[in-house]
């Protein structure tokens, strides 16, 4: 449903990273991850240390990944589901226990990130990364913005804006503005949230993940996007800015899980343990510009990231971030409203 990537979306691209060192007899490890959601340097470091070759395939949504794993014989060892999908996969018996929570280095992990209801003691998965979903805008078009209301006002003033092509994220904006939970299954609340989007629909240019280049060029004034937008803000500081809207926003978190039918179980567990090291988690954040649940790692990351309020917000802002849970059957309420939003013109 959401895309956790920091650069351009291309769900169809699937590529393998072959470690720099010579292939070894230590075997291999097959990762199935969101597009551009891990620093290749992490994989290289793992191969250099262990001699294990790492292959990487990518997906564009939790559902795409789930369908592939459910079909069986995927050959993958590790996947990166969002927390609610972690629960779903656990319920479906697709995950293997790793006892990662018992590892001495697990003390590095901030316990508040062990979120999955089905895995309260981290017997299965390792919290991987987290971030928020806010707004990126072009500073040459609009000087200052800090709320969802600003975004829609900007749209009403005739500037183009783009929202994410994602039912829960986009209807979630309505929930946040109405003060209801983004996980609400109350039909009236969901309809009311969708009404906010419908009311502003005429001023929404598109629902798309591919908005960053258009914001940079000024073709679009602002876009609903992930915290990873900070990478582009850093590259174009005079043009771009990213903020977490003052009404609140959603956050996401992915966990690193080993599959029950992983062909390289030992290597997979070894990778989870490898990623517990603060310097490795920090290496990943350096390129990904997102949040890590690894506390000592936060001391190792570059200060401009650690001090960036949009990446590591204060606790009061953090408290306003809501995370999606799985809705089961009630997901259909959102799909129904989403279809209705996208078909009204």
């Amino acid at each position: 449903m959401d895309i956790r990537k920091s650069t351009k979306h291309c769900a169809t691209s699937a590529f393998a990273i072959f470690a720099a060192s010579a292939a070894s007899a230590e075997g291999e490890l097959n990762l199935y991850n969101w597009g551009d959601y891990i620093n290749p340097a992490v994989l290289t470091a793992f191969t250099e240390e262990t001699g294990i070759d790492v292959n990487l395939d990518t997906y564009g949504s939790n559902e795409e990944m789930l369908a592939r794993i459910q079909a069986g014989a995927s050959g993958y060892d590790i996947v990166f589901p969002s927390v609610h999908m972690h629960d779903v996969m656990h319920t479906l018996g697709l995950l293997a226990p790793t006892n990662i929570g018992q590892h001495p280095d697990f003390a590095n992990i901030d316990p508040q990130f062990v979120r999955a209801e089905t895995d309260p003691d981290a017997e299965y998965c390792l919290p991987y990364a987290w971030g928020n979903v806010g707004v990126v805008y072009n500073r040459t078009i609009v000087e200052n913005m800090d709320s969802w209301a600003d975004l829609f006002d900007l749209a009403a003033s005739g500037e183009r804006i783009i929202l994410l092509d994602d039912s829960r994220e986009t209807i979630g904006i309505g929930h946040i503005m109405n003060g209801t939970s983004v996980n609400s299954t109350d039909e009236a609340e969901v309809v009311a949230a969708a009404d906010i989007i419908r009311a502003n629909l005429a001023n929404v240019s598109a629902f798309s993940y591919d908005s960053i280049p258009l914001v940079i060029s000024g073709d679009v004034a602002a876009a609903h996007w992930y915290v990873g937008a900070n990478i582009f803000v850093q590259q174009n500081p005079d043009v771009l800015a990213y903020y977490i809207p003052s009404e609140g926003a959603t956050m996401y978190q992915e966990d690193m899980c080993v599959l029950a039918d992983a062909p390289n179980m030992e290597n997979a567990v070894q990778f989870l343990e490898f990623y517990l090291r603060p310097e490795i988690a920090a290496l990943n954040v350096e390129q990904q510009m997102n949040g890590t649940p690894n506390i000592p790692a936060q001391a190792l990351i570059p200060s401009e990231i650690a001090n960036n309020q949009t990446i590591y917000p204060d606790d009061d802002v953090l408290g306003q971030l809501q995370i999606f849970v799985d809705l089961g059957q009630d997901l259909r309420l959102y799909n129904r409203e989403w279809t209705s939003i996208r078909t009204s013109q």
Partner: protein
Amino acid sequence: MSGLETNEGRKKLALFGLLTPPTIFLGVFFLVPLGIMVVYSFLEPGLYGGVVWNFYDLNYGRILGWADSRYEQFDPVYLIVFLRSVKLALTTVILSLFICYPAAFWISRMSDARKSFFLFLITLPFFVSLVVRLFAWVLILRPTGFLNQGLMGAGIISEPLELMFTNTAVVIGMAYVFIPFMFLPLYASVEKLDMSLVEASADLGATRLQTFRRVILPMTLPGIIGGSIIVFIPSLGNFIVPSVLGGSRVLMIGNLIEQQFLSARNWPFGSALGMLVMAAVLVLLMVYVRIMTKEEEYANATKVKEG
């Protein structure tokens, strides 16, 4: 036993040998998936994708009108989206036809070497990823894109045209993607057109327009219809172009189907929507087969019996 000894028997065996692989191929890669779709469309959706093996008619009920529960409600929107897709697909067909028909005549009059070169050019886009080519169109159509810059530079417009994320952009994108499919059958029938028939028509007193309407059009009709159908079918079910160039503000039936499989976790409903498209395509294919049969007759007719 006796059959294999005779010539007839050997012929039958050879025919059997030749036809078996394609039959198996079609069976495995076309009919089986189609069968799965049909079966799934009558099953209950699984909570996390997949299906529950209970007979369930509400997938069609949602589209056609008898579903009414918290989770399964009839909504005319699916039929509206389907009709809107038909309209966009038809517009795409007409636009690509208007581009390809004169081009086919133009290229068919060239020397063989230039002909091959142009035919190669028309297939060239296939060497580049579709998604990359569509993003190139975003660069062309956006307000600060090449098209608007060019038109404003030439003083034709003063404000950038709103093309990006509109029906127009989707139609341009689909016509661009499917032009080779329109061009090739059209070209085949235009190239076959006997120019002496055109001369005969003029000789018999027909003006250019009359010649076009009475001779050229009917003689190239199989190519026009063939190309139109081959463009119409993938346009109708397309979801990549409306999501990239339409910014998902232009919703086609293909996007709805994609959404059911990739985010709504409702495979049976996706299958039922797919069957709707399938039914439309089947009707068209039957029309096509009838026309191709007619063309066969034309083809025979153009061979004058010697003597």
